[in-house]
């Protein structure tokens, strides 16, 4: 066993983790979902993104019941196009997780950069950046995401919309979420920039850029990590909300939210499984990531030690 791993296993952090059943359960659920999304092409029974591989006559198969026309059985049923719900969930997870991770990464980079600049430079630059952040905070994040999505839809030609939809989604969610990162990093930077090691770095003539990146940023990463985890849950929900409203992932490349939107049309007619299983998956994903984030916040908070 190498030392890094043994150090980690002996750490305070791991000890707390091993003593928290909620954290362990949340971690297991999250990892199961992430891994099954990653290995979707291997473990799925069909590729629901390839319309040529579907058989329409499989449409509306009940979970675990043999289809009268084709004789096939789907243990989670099929939707209106004959797509296997189990496979669509796996592929939908990929879209949801990809959008979630990318959006948070984008928000984190943007927010941390602006926060660092604002906190380190101070003065007018700080005021401008933080006022923009304050203004953005007065709008609900979903509204901002909808706005960005609408503008993007207006300027892209219709035949490319499906291709760019995912990237627009990432951009929209990322742009609606950077403020938290900026505020946290700015706060930490304000504290750090007057400490001796920063003063020392200034004295020996290091450039402001290098001080920000090499000296201050590493000391702000703890809280950023906590926010990132909680943001991930929110980004996944935001993506599902947008897709549910019909402005997110296209129907040919469904995310969990798109699947829930499709399933909603069939609630009255009793085909509950089209909506139910994707919804349960989304619930499990958002809940477990959120619980992990909460636990991480407590574990890294020195005041709760």
């Amino acid at each position, binding site marked *: 066993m190498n030392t890094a791993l043994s150090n980690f296993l002996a750490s305070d952090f791991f000890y707390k983790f091993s003593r928290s059943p909620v954290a362990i359960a949340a971690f297991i659920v999250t990892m199961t979902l992430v891994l099954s999304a990653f290995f979707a092409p291997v473990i799925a029974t069909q590729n629901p993104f*390839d*319309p*040529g*591989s*579907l058989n*329409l*006559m499989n*449409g*509306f198969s009940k979970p675990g019941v043999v289809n009268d*026309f084709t004789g096939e059985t789907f243990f989670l049923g099929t939707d*209106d*196009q*004959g797509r296997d719900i189990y496979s669509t969930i796996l592929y939908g997870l990929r879209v949801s997780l990809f959008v979630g991770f990318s959006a948070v990464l984008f928000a984190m980079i943007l927010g941390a950069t602006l926060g660092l600049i604002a906190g380190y430079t101070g003065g007018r630059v700080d005021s401008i950046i933080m006022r923009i952040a304050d203004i953005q905070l007065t709008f*609900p*994040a*979903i509204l901002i995401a909808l706005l960005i999505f609408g503008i993007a839809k207006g300027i892209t030609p*219709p*035949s490319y*919309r*499906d*291709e760019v939809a995912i990237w627009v989604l990432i951009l929209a969610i990322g742009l609606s979420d950077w403020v938290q990162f900026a505020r946290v990093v700015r706060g930490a930077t304000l504290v750090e920039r007057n400490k001796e090691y920063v003063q020392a770095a200034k004295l020996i003539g290091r450039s402001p850029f290098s001080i920000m990146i090499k000296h201050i940023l590493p000391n702000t990463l703890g809280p950023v990590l906590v926010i990132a985890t909680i943001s991930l849950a*929110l980004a996944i*929900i*935001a993506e599902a*909300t947008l897709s549910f409203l019909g402005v997110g992932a296209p*129907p*040919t490349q469904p995310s969990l939210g798109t699947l829930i939107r499709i399933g*909603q*049309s*069939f*609630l*009255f*007619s009793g*085909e509950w499984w089209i909506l139910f299983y994707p919804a349960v998956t989304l619930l499990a994903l958002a809940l477990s990531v959120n619980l992990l984030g909460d636990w991480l916040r407590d574990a890294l908070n020195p005041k709760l030690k």
Partner: protein
Amino acid sequence: MSKISKLIGTLVSTTVLFGAVSVSSAETLRWARAGDSLTLDPHSQNEGPTHALAQQIYEPLISPDMEAKPIPALATEWAVKEGNPNVWVFKLREGVKFHGGEDLTAEDVVFSFERAKLESSDMKELIVTIKSVTAVDDFTVEIETDGPNPILPNNLTNLFIMDKGWAEANNVTKPAEFDDGEETYAVRNANGTGAFMLESREPDVKTVLKANPNYWGKGQFPLEVTEIVYTPIQNAATRVAALLSGEVDLIQDVPVQDLGRVQAADGLIVNNAPQNRTIFFGINSGDTDLKNDNVEGKNPFADLKVRQAMSLALDRDAIKQVVMRGQSAPTGVIIPPFVNGWTEALDAYPKADIDAAKKLMDEAGYGGGFEITMNCPNDRYVNDEAICQAAAGMFGKIGIKTNLVAQTKANHFPLISQKETDLYLLGWGVPTFDSEYVFNFLVHSTTDDRGSWNGSRFNNADIDAKIQSLGSEVDLDKRNATIAEIWKVVQDEQIYLPIHNQVLNWGMKSNIDFPVQPEDQPHFKFLKFN
């Protein structure tokens, strides 16, 4: 979690808003369907839901009734002029007033016909054979056609009459250019002679109509509705929920998956009837190269074998069974059985045969397949987007990879009329009940006055001449023979890919007595409460 609580807040406030809508008096009819009328300008768009709203406000000379039979509206009688078979004489109804108080005279009729013949009109194909319209006196109009036109009255049932003075005063003597999104006064305001007057209009949100107190038809029609509140509800589940909860009184398009639920609900009934409308795919076979595909320098659809392969790949029975849940009649021709020229032989469609289709693709040299954009509306026909998705899968099986673009009809239709799409879904109803109407719009090559919806770009001078001859052929046997010849070419060339004829399902409160109109046109002056 503040985002979630905000979202819940939004949901709650939306519910409160919808709740407020449901307070109304007994004679109010709250009417909903998937899409809104595209424009109030009566000559700007020849489209079902647009005419459905216009029919309440404006009136034609001859109006379809609830069985789609023509009955006198603004004209009381009409006949071919004695001694001149090229002229129809229409006697106008006397004492009719527009909503603004102006009297209806022959001048208004002449003006409306001339307006409908202008370049920006979408109604011009219907009256392409009309040479001139003249007012003989205040209440007599003579319409002269290129040659004898025995079926002219059939073409006038959606040709609405406007007030000349009102149009001039508001600078709307030209139909609004719909494809360019032109907004004129007539797009949001209306002044007709119909049983209902426009009270307020918010496109895609809500339109309110009030009964016309001076309507000429008092005593002739039930006229029991005093107010119509029309709300388009695109989402199928929301639309059904609105009917189930009593928020609306009548929805014109009960989603096929919810028919059982609505029928079983207390106080609700579903009336159904086959619709005079065929749903089909249009394919651009006429251009030498396509804009929306990945084949360079040539048009794969120009090859008849590719078009036949697509027809073979299309499993119409599966679409009926799964997507339409039995609520459709698969067909091999783009006209429903109501229409003169329809035969059982035309209606026959091939059984899906992927192997035969693949073989045809191989023979055409497209065994490796190609990519193409498919355009589809998502709020116009029953399960339109689901049909396109299913078809995308079926075409995918023979190597044609489609990128589906499904969008609202206001964005979809201009792609067809502007000839920007190469593969698209369209539905076509035939209000004249004659094949000539279909030929004029969909088969004749695109010229100034014909072929405006011919997205196939099919262009055949011989066929064009035959289509033109229909307008003035008085010998009905000969005319029908020509119609059959044109259909033979349309079928042999596989210009279109027919899918099915729709079945209409109107869901309504059980105290409403209102039969389904085969053209999906509710004329609310006939509606009775019991």
